[in-house]
């Protein structure tokens, strides 16, 4: 298998410039600077590179939207606010090969004509931010970055900015607001960041992994990159496998690699020899797949879409047969209720409401009609919010309820307890859920804690 992103990842001291240069770092930038921005955009478009942050939007096209007025500054923002539950690939890249990311930032900045780039990292990554800062200083001191990169006319100032720990800062416009020093409330689009972005100037926001691919594309050529993976999903993908597997971690696989094969070969299969129950293939905001559904799925955008889910950020969360799906869903719903920024109404009130209903379901205080209520609330959030967080919070609820409905129905009180609506409120009959066998098994989980700990 060809490694695009992890070629030097195991190289000792790869974060040091000298070591990285020996491995061929900044060779891509050198070549990129020989190209004009238009040629560079054409090259990246030809490579078929798509955004790795979750949406999979073609990177070359995103860049081509930048048409600044004469004299107008353009900004490149590198999104390292990796907050999607189950995702930790950017952390891995930034920690082990920061120069690969910095090089990608420089190449992209050249393509869009940005003289200033920000690397926005989540607050929890403070420790690696220091290392990235050191790498940046080293590269700047060596004349690779900063003024007159590699002796050319191209100058680029890169600044590292730490967030304060909010999921919403990973959203494109939320990140821009946060970087401007404002409350990270996503903006209504249009206008799009490509026109009115950071400080109201044309702005491109790219994911760390997306930018890390650029070096390879420039060094090996767009054709070599396009040859990897499938027709429409080119290159490789970092997947973060967590949950009930024997060897959780970040793995690089070629696009089009079978999902279960990756689980088996890379992550050494479901731990303790248990059977696979379900897998969330792209961070918690994509629909879950049952074991049966996951069997034919490949790791690429199209195959995931055909299976009714998304590749997303590549954060794969694995559930084994002992997993309590309502509990897992409650954990996910509570995450979104906690992380909803509170700007627009459906997400602010809806995520909290869904979490509330799930909480009482899991506590054995469910009321008849609660499952329908969850779906109805989800339906009222979906497609009506400013940013994707609203939709993201609904996907797991809908897919869990659809695919594991019996488990949820078991939490509901028997139908005969259903009285008139006003009597039911607040007095849902308690069932003996806490003593259920499934719970026992869950609590006596011998290693690594319960499977939902990874969430």
């Amino acid at each position: 298998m060809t490694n695009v992103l992890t070629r030097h990842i195991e190289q000792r001291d790869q974060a040091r410039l000298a070591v990285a240069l020996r491995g061929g770092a900044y060779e891509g930038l050198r070549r990129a600077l020989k190209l004009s921005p238009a040629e560079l955009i054409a090259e990246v478009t030809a490579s078929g590179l798509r955004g790795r942050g979750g949406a999979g939007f073609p990177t070359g096209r995103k860049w081509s939207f930048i048409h600044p007025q004469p004299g107008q500054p353009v900004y490149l923002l590198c999104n390292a606010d990796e907050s999607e539950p189950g995702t930790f690939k950017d952390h891995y890249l930034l920690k082990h090969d920061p120069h690969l990311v910095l090089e990608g930032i420089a190449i992209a900045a050249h393509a869009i004509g940005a003289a200033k780039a920000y690397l926005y990292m989540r607050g929890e990554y403070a420790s690696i931010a220091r290392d990235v800062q050191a790498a940046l200083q080293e590269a700047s001191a060596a004349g690779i970055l900063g003024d007159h990169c590699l002796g050319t006319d191209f100058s680029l100032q890169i600044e590292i900015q730490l967030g304060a720990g909010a999921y919403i800062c990973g959203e494109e416009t939320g990140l821009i607001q946060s970087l401007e020093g404002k409350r990270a409330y996503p903006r209504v689009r249009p206008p799009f960041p490509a026109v009115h972005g950071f400080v109201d100037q044309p702005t491109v926001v790219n994911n760390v992994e997306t930018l890390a691919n650029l070096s390879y594309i420039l060094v090996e050529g767009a054709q070599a990159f396009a040859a990897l993976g499938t027709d429409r999903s080119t290159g490789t993908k970092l997947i973060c496998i967590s949950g009930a597997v024997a060897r959780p971690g970040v793995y690089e696989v070629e696009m089009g690699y079978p999902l279960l094969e990756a689980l088996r070969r890379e992550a050494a299969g479901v731990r303790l020899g248990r059977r696979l129950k379900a897998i969330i293939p792209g961070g918690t905001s994509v629909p879950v797949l049952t074991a049966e559904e996951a069997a034919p799925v490949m790791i690429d955008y199209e195959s995931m879409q055909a299976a009714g889910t998304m590749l997303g950020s590549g954060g794969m969360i694995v559930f084994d047969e002992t997993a309590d799906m309502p509990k897992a869903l409650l954990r996910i719903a509570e995450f979104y209720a906690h992380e909803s920024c509170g700007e627009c109404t459906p997400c602010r009130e809806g995520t909290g409401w869904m979490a509330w209903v799930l909480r009482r379901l899991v506590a054995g205080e469910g009321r008849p009609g609660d499952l329908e209520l969850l779906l109805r609330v989800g339906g009222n959030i979906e497609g009506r919010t400013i940013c994707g967080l609203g939709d993201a919070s609904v996907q797991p609820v809908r897919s869990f309820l659809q695919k594991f409905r019996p488990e949820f129905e078991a939490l509901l009180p028997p139908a005969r307890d259903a009285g008139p609506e006003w009597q039911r409120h607040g007095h849902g009959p308690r069932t003996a859920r806490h003593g259920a066998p499934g719970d026992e098994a869950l609590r006596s989980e011998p290693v690594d804690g319960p499977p939902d700990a990874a969430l």
Partner: protein
Amino acid sequence: MPMVTIDGRQIEVEPGTSIIQAADRLGVEIPRFCYHPDLRPEGNCRMCLVEVDGFARLAVACATPVADGMVVRSPHTSPQASQAVNGVLEFLLVNHPLDCPICDQAGECSLQDFYMHPDYGLHKSHVDPAEKVHKRKRIDLGPRIVLDAERCVMCSRCVRFSADVSGKAELQFIQRGNHVELMAFEDRALEDPYAGNLADVCPVGALTSRDFRFKRRVWHLEHTNSVCAGCSTGCNVRIDHFQNHIERVVPRRNPSVNSSWICDEGRLSWQAAQGGERLTQPASGGGYPPEIRWSEAVKAAHELLTDRGERPLAVLGSASATNETLLLLRRYAEQAHSEHWLDFRLAEEVQLVGEREDQLLRRRDKHPNTLGAVYLGLAGARGGLPAMLEAAQTGEIGALLLVYYPPLVGEESAGVAEGIARLLANVPRSVVLTTHRLPYLQGAALQLPVAAWSEEEGTYTNFAGTVQVVERAIIPPGMSRPATAVLADLVEHQVYRRPDADAERLFAELARTVPAYQGMDYAMLDSRTATTYPPEGRMHYGQEGFAGR
């Protein structure tokens, strides 16, 4: 220009107009919380969702610019949009307290009105009141505003007003998700001189005005359009009154004058007009009975002003009087039997008239009609109060007719007050038309009570020359009468023919005779066309049932 179809009705609008603006112009009511015509759109409440042909999702009408040929369906006609808006309303009420009876906003609350709307409201609640998220209640935000965080719908109108309009940026949201709540930093008192507008922009009962709080349920109020008389800006206001008592003054939207705003001083200026010690009957100094009837008073005034020998009559008007009052005052002066000296200046009004006190609305000239007086030719070559005082001290003035309104914002400057007192002391034959019993007017031979602001109809000409109508909201106290009526009486005594004292006819005369008002029509003046926001009678369903009160 783009042509857009909303609910089957077409309108052509300028490029860049949002759907909601086009709908407002068509009269199609699209529900909204966060949209405000004078604030930048934020699109966070999601109440203005509309169906647009060719769009995969519902669009927010406030932040979606129209395109040519766009076909839009509002919640009134689109089941999809109606269902979505109903869902948003349900979300808004998940954590909103259901205590409308004790909420001061009830009756003019958008949430209440939208919930009661048959096209997208009236859902069945699925939430147990015990499950609601509770937030802080009754937070003191200074002398103007009280915050109830629990009633907030997080539309951020106040935050945007504070940040973008008044520039104080004193409000922000804290917390996340359904725990988001509005807060002033450390709950400090707001220092904004425009803080009162926060209660106006708030569509629900989260920010309420301390002055109006609990005073009157809004459905009892009667509304009268007027113009603030606090300074030369001439902000459009609506006077809300009940049983001949003003309860509050709120701004009326007029994009060319005050947008949707008014300063706190202007908002409370009615208290100066109504408060203090009002002069309620004709009162005289030496020689006349202490309190006399109107017929006697006018006769006495006439005698005072005419039996002055050969010395001239001085007439000192006021920049706080309406154009109509000043017109009659001028006519009275011109018809005086000998030479007259007509002016209105007490101090530096004319120099200050356009000068700003801050960047938003307030101006340093605290008179509403300085330019009107100038247009009427009252600023003569001989000068105002200081020159008159000088002449009076040498005995050159035979009699004085003074029209005086105390300023509604701030105090009269000590210099002017003293000047008036000395002028009255030096001219024994003096008649003062005024609203209040004031120490520096006590030297007048005769004081006649006239109607204050909000008690008479007329027009003001603001600093920019915009002529605006003030309507009569309440009846003047005691025996006070509009100054136009008193002056008409005086003119009648002079020429044995009573002139029109009706504002509309007087203005017609102004339009005929004063070049600045050439061709203007009373019925078409700005103040009649300016609107309240939200438009009156459209959002306030509560009023209709009690209109008779």
